[in-house]
């Protein structure tokens, strides 16, 4: 059973190895002449103003992230349910129907309240 997952490790190590080797080979042949003016972040040619990564970003991205977590957990519940649906029959279907229905109300709620509108 565990053997099924061994290739995952092998592949991750191998890809990382190839990537590092490529970068190494590239470092042998590429030029390296950095100077501050050249390495400034791109801002249409003018000098950059302020820090970009201080976290002043639209709150909307967080809303999307929260919605994602809710529905991603739902996906995880659905996977095992979908596999055994034929065995558990109508009772299992109704149970999941209630679950999806409740989440659907959540989606409609977010929709009506404007959480999905990008333009405010």
């Amino acid at each position, binding site marked *: 059973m565990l*053997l*099924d*997952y*061994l*290739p*995952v490790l092998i*592949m*991750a190590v*191998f*890809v*990382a190895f*190839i*990537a590092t080797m*490529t970068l190494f080979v*590239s*470092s042998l*042949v*590429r*030029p*390296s002449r*950095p100077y501050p003016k*050249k*390495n*400034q*972040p*791109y*801002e*249409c040619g003018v000098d*950059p103003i302020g*820090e*970009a*990564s201080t976290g002043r*970003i639209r709150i909307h*991205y967080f809303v*999307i*992230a929260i*919605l*994602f977590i809710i*529905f*991603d957990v739902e*996906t995880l519940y*659905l*996977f095992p349910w*979908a*596999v*055994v*649906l*034929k*065995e558990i029959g109508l009772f*299992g*279907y109704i149970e*999941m*129907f209630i679950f999806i229905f409740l989440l*659907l109300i959540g*989606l409609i709620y977010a*929709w009506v309240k404007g959480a*999905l*509108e*990008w*333009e405010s």
Partner: protein
Amino acid sequence: MLDLFMTIFFMIIKVIGITLILLLLPVPLTWLERKVAGHIQQRLGPMRVGWHGLLQPIADGIKLLTKEDNIPIYADKTLFKLAPIISLIPPFLVFVAVPFGEDVTLFGRKTGLYISDMNIGLLYIFAVAGLEVYGVILGGWASNSKYALLGGLRCCAQLISYEIPLGFSVMGVIMLTGSMSLLDIVEAQSQIWNVVYQPIGFFVFLVAGIAEAQRIPFDLAEAEGDLGSGYHTEYSGMRFAFFMLTEYIVMLTVSVLIVLLFFGGWNGPFLPPIVWFILKVGFFVYLFMWFRFTFPRYRYDQLMSIGWKVLLPLSLANILITGIFLA
């Protein structure tokens, strides 16, 4: 003991083989894409390097290899260097669980045209494919440039938004088969393809898949026009190439998954299975290229509302309807 050793040996051989194939596939694919683009737009495309520009990708590769590796002065250096590799690994890992055909006999030993037949195959694929987001968001953030940050955030929001309909749309297929193993799913389609039972599921998967691969019409993350090519604005040389490679492999992954889940995998008459498989995958790769030069790009708010207001309800409805027939 020897048996175990041989199994692991074959495993390593297969892993290396598939990795190399995946690494080299973008070479013909970029050429093909530029040729398709050219002919759709009534041009010839690359013609200079080699016969009909066949060696153009090689020239591009050499150029990328010898380009200077710029690191912005305000960047978080470690994360900046690491991000392309982080985003490169997950798309490869997906192919551990992807089968290319049934068992074949090789050197007197029966072996499968797949690395590993996991019983949770599809779940594993979604789990690993989801990891790609980390490379994108880290790359965008570590650059500490406004364009890169915006691009990274947009891309991250897009990827997570479309991951949900993508996950929901395969639920119908799992219900039909009663298994998450891709081998079982293909086997169940030996008579009728799943696309017949699951047209809505296929449609949602196709659209969400294009969005996951960040192809036009959903390539908002790089949007050359308004974002200066998004989260990899600050990247150059090989690190930039890694991001590009990632995108190509994701596109390939989506095509392969569509074929396996909805179009019967390697099942087909007359021709050998592997040929059928390559033909089908090739068709979808071509379809993606075709889309790229046919459709305009969506606005970002349109992109978000398509994901949350159209695809998500559609895929949920698909689950419920499929469930009624099966339960």
